[in-house]
């Protein structure tokens, strides 16, 4: 059968895995009702955070993994989304869910505009420019002139929404479902994008910009739009973070956040959709364990100070890049490929004669 052209995702039957995964996620909160436990709400919160980070990493992946533009400053778009949602809720009394479309538009616009100067920059300079963005945004958020809106250094405290329609679930179970719904919509849309004309154009630009241009792709337009879409995804993740944490503060959006997205991207797998989910989960787990890891390290090496989480990220990142250079998703795929005997197929095709059509062609 002529399979669809989405080799990187569907061809190896990942469709079923994806379905199983999302169903599992749908059932997961029900566990809490079946086996009530003290810490269940906390697990639900971790689950929310994993999805939030997964969406943010997906945003970065669309830009870097699928379009070949680098960003060290996606924390800025995350912050923009978080603050837009928070301000709409506090100052304008909007319900949490209604902020999402506005965040989408605002962040798309911001990303699109940032994409224009980005066009002129070679990759190193783009890295530098986005790096500057990551550093500047927390400072801007603290600035006096907008402190009335942003709450300055102390940030903004929100209210956690209650489950609607009197649903018999806890707020955290409900927010889990809300994040899950958003994640499903956003991953579905990204999947569609990538297997369609626009996604192929994005990847063509990544692989060979000049050839993409001669194929009729308006490379500048596609790159700026991709920047916008990427910012939209990461911005929505920011809004979800504001809603689920019920708090925004400038320092949580500083450089380490942008670096965390990159780590999630590389760990999960650059240019892999399931990899984004893996990356998101990884970030939350490391955050969770970094305190105890830091304690262990302090103990064993009798250090005088805490080991910061970014240092742990760094070490883990190096380790993983060494063991699995294509990320966890890539590593799993290769493993599966090896088991399924794809390597054998390589051999058969390689050994085929290259002049395939000489007979058929004569007439």
């Amino acid at each position, binding site marked *: 059968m002529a399979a669809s*052209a989405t*080799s990187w995702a569907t061809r190896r039957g990942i469709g079923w895995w994806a379905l199983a995964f999302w169903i599992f996620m749908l059932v997961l909160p029900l566990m809490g009702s079946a086996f009530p436990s003290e810490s269940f709400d906390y697990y639900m919160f971790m689950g929310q955070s994993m999805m939030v980070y997964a969406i943010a990493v997906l945003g970065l992946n669309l830009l870097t993994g699928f379009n070949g533009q680098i960003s060290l400053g996606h924390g800025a778009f995350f912050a923009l989304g978080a603050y837009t949602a928070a301000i709409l809720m506090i100052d304008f009394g909007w319900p949490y869910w209604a902020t999402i479309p506005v965040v989408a538009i605002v962040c798309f616009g911001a990303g699109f505009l940032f994409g224009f100067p980005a066009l002129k920059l070679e990759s190193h300079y783009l890295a530098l420019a986005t790096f500057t963005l990551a550093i500047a945004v927390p400072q801007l958020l603290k600035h006096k002139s907008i402190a009335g809106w942003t709450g300055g250094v102390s940030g903004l405290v929100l209210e956690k929404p209650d489950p609607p329609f009197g649903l018999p679930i806890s707020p955290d179970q409900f927010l889990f479902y809300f994040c899950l719904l958003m994640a499903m919509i956003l991953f579905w*849309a990204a999947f569609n*994008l990538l297997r369609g*004309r626009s996604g192929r154009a994005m990847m063509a630009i990544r692989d060979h910009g000049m050839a993409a241009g001669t194929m009729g*792709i308006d490379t500048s337009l596609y790159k700026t739009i991709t920047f916008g*879409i990427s910012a939209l995804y990461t911005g929505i993740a920011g809004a979800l973070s504001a809603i689920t944490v019920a708090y925004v503060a400038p320092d949580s959006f500083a450089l380490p956040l942008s670096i965390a997205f990159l780590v999630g991207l590389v760990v999960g797998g650059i240019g892999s959709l399931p990899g984004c989910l893996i990356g998101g989960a990884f970030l939350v787990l490391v955050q969770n364990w970094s305190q105890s890891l830091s304690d262990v390290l302090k103990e064993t090496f009798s250090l005088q100070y805490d080991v910061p989480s970014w240092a742990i990220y760094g070490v883990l990142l190096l380790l993983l890049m060494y063991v699995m250079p294509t990320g966890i998703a890539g590593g799993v795929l290769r493993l599966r490929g090896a088991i399924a005997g794809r390597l054998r197929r390589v051999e058969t095709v390689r050994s085929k004669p290259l002049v395939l059509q000489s007979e*058929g*062609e004569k007439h």
Partner: protein
Amino acid sequence: MLSVRGVTVRFGGVVALDAVSFDVFPGQIAGLIGPNGAGKTTLFNCLSRLYQPSAGEILFQGQSVLATPRHRIASIGIGRTFQNVALFDRLTVLENVMVGRHCQTHSSFAANALRLAGVVAEQAGAQARAMELIEFMGLEDFTHWPSGGLPFPIRKRVELARALAAKPKLLLLDEPAAGLNHDEVHVLEAQIRRVRDTQDVTVLLVEHHMSLVMSVSDKVITVNFGRKIADGTPEEVRRDPEVIRAYLGTAA
């Protein structure tokens, strides 16, 4: 169909093209030959708007090519391959050829993300056409292979299939025979003829492989050091003393 008029390109002190003029007529296969560094690829790059000539005009079906932005060149009907093969390495052969359909399809980002009904139909059409071309070029066995890892002669065919997917009226081939063995060149020759006859395209062919150019071309344009030195049927060009001195003399 194609009319190149006094095109001049300079790179610093180097004059890569010096007031080159020639015409290509519909349905022709025109050969463009000349020694290394003569300016052949530079001319192609002007035609696909990668370089901006400092003087001259290029008309394609009466329309100014130089007034057309790069990304519109494919949709006005000029397609090309590259001398050193420019594929999208991480995409499969099928995906590469489908990218070739870009200028023939129109769905937007939003329509793609929501996978509207029109997108599904358009995608199916693009894929069907791509599969036809993959068969046409004898690439069925490689359909789902990432193009990056394929052997060079296969990559060249993928590139040709991708160029054809855009439904060009004029196809620019930059040294399609380079790196092919004797048998493969024969296949290529047949393929070029077949492309012209069945896909309804005019071909401008840059090639160092003399017997290929001479047998397949209706006319041959010769350039040397950026200047056109001959323009005529293969027979005329083969006998032209200046061509013999500049090119065939050194090759023979």
